[in-house]
């Protein structure tokens, strides 16, 4: 317990926490949307994240981006070209996420839904899918079970200071990218016609069906959107920590699901708030109790238990249907 150390590292750890939290929040959106619509923990969302991380690595390599962006041997720092390429990678990564989430829905969930299987069975099927995907990447993926490191393609540079804490361009990219995606999602769910369909199905699937909502299509779109968010998050996470391994999804998935529950599962804003809070708590926790990463995780879970004891349905309550977003 080093309280003075904690105070002196407060702002740097806040920034790390925000960056982590932004990633958790995006992944948590995937859990929360699917839960809202199907009342189902989509265990395979974490593997969607992992697949996208690998996908974005491959894209960067195939497009040979580190070479293209180099400025006399040195990676570039800023510029429109960099922003364009980042946006492109984000898009590709998100698309990979979306597509793989849809495939998971098709293969692992839809057959069960047709048979009206009990809920636990969905969980096991999801676990099976999750196992199969991560093991497939571990077995036949680009680096097999070893860590896959991303070639640096832009220079990490300190931009400015907030209360003495360094803010790097990578931090800004992650936070801004996540904010844009989250905003787009909130608008999509609250304003668009399909978003209204999602909310209707979340509120009462039977009635929604009677009112002419194509429930199967809505479910598919929900998975797609959740996958897009997880995919985007994967690329942003790779900017923060440029490594991926076949089992990278698991811990992020657990964290993101915790975040979704913390904010109130099924609630879009709750997932965003929960993700940010969880990232901050984790970062502050590990800076308060020494630099041990484990302690951060323990702090996050203990907070979850405490919050749930006081507010049994999460911070913002659990309603995708009733909330405005």
């Amino acid at each position, binding site marked *: 317990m080093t309280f003075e150390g904690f105070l002196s590292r407060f702002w740097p750890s806040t920034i790390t926490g925000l960056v982590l939290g932004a990633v958790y929040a995006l992944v948590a959106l995937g859990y929360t949307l699917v*839960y809202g619509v*199907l*009342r*189902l*923990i989509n265990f395979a969302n974490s593997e969607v994240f992992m697949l996208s991380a690998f996908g974005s690595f491959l894209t960067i390599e195939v497009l040979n981006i580190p070479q293209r962006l180099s400025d006399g041997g040195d990676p570039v720092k800023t510029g429109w070209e960099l922003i364009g390429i980042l946006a492109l990678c984000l898009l590709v990564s998100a698309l990979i996420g979306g597509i793989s989430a849809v495939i998971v829905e*098709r*293969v*692992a969930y*839809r*057959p*069960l*839904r*047709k*048979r*009206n*299987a*009990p*809920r*636990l*069975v*969905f*969980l*096991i*099927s999801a*676990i*099976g*899918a999750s*196992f*199969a*995907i991560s*093991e*497939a990447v*571990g*077995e*036949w993926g680009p680096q097999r*079970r070893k860590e896959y490191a991303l070639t640096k393609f832009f220079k990490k540079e300190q931009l400015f200071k907030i209360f003495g804490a360094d803010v790097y361009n990578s931090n800004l990219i992650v936070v801004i990218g996540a904010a844009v995606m989250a905003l787009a999602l909130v608008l999509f769910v609250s304003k668009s016609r399909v978003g209204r369909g999602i909310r209707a*199905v979340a*509120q*009462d*699937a*039977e009635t929604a069906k009677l009112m002419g909502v194509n429930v199967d299509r809505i479910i598919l779109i929900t998975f797609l959107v959740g996958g897009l968010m997880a995919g985007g998050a994967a690329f942003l996470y790779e900017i923060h920590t440029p490594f991926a391994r076949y089992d990278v999804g*698991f811990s992020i998935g*657990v964290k993101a*699901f*915790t975040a979704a*529950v913390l904010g109130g*599962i099924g609630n879009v804003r709750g997932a965003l708030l929960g993700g940010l809070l969880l990232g901050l708590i984790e970062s502050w926790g590990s800076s308060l109790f020494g630099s*041990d990463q*484990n*302690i951060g*995780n*323990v702090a996050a*879970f*203990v907070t*979850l*238990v405490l919050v*749930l*004891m006081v507010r*049994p*349905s999460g911070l913002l309550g659990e309603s995708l249907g009733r909330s405005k977003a």
Partner: protein
Amino acid sequence: MSQDISSSPPPTAAAKLVFGSRFIAAARRRRTLETRYKALPKPARALLVLVLVVFIYLLPSLNLPIIPTSSDFTALLAIIIVPYVLVALGLNVVVGMAGLLDLGYVGFYAVGAYSLAILTSRHATVPWLISIPISVGISMLAGVLLGAPTLRLRGDYLAIVTLGFGEIIRLLAKSSDWMGAQSGIGNIKSPPNIGPIKFSGTIHERNIAFYYLAVTFVVVVFFFLRRLESSRVGRSWTAIREDEDAAELMGVPTFKFKLWAFAIGAGIGGLSGTLYASNVRFINPDNFLLKLSILFLAAVVLGGPGNMVGVMLGAVAVSYLPERLRFLNTSRYFWFGVLLMVMMVFRPQGLLPRKLRARIKPRDSDVPAFVDVSEGDPDLEGGSHGTATA
């Protein structure tokens, strides 16, 4: 629907599918076997059970064809398969009988293992026989401590909190020097020798001894739970699982019985942990990864939650199949995942589904002896949207 599943994996998957369906076919046959078994007179049933138990005890010495997977089948049985069966029985109390979703069961397993390690090696030298009940007691206490604040939460919240618990136990063990930190605890005591059953003999003797010990634990726990199932406690669990609100209204103290389910489940998990620790004699935090919890849960759901014979079968499947698939080398967990999905599609209710029967004592002649409640599973039914407000 089945076609698009079976057509997705490469041709080698066909073999796996055949294997899966063989299991299912076996389960179907058992169903009719079960009715026939029920029709037998009591002494005959007792005899059959006895024969089965003896057969299981003799399993490693019989040298059966096909079934053994590795050169040391006894070790596989003693270290992996039978402990899995024990864990599945324990988790079944929580998930199958009381209907509470526990994703962090490995936490109790770790508590049991670490209690034994600390008591017999790291901080004390308590005899093995005395440390076992203490470790089980500590595990039960952990169950109560976790359950007391969290059992008021609804299903999915409980799931994530338990998941967190499983992770916290491991992380605490990893960062606390008192519990051996990352390097773990070694020199854990073995049970004392009982005549020809030598826990301190050669590796083979040792594995045989542990196999007998583990099977004995399973048999004792099985009959204990069987009695419990038909007692007031078991009936309360059924009521809670089927409809918690209705149970509460009918005067079942739901919280108390849920806590009991947690404590008993935790105790059995802890017992299994002690078995594991005294067998391998060295434990570290990496033995208790969250993945293990998920495999435990897979065993229960695969077997058919609520049906004790079913979950035991599920546990054997989950622990035995990866070994059976060992010829696939490192990709076997991939095929295991595929197999899980395929089995869930073809047999979502598990290998041996629970038969819901409310037993009513035939005191009055006009009351039927058995009343079929339903084959469905309203509590867990979420594939539809019936539980939107639950």
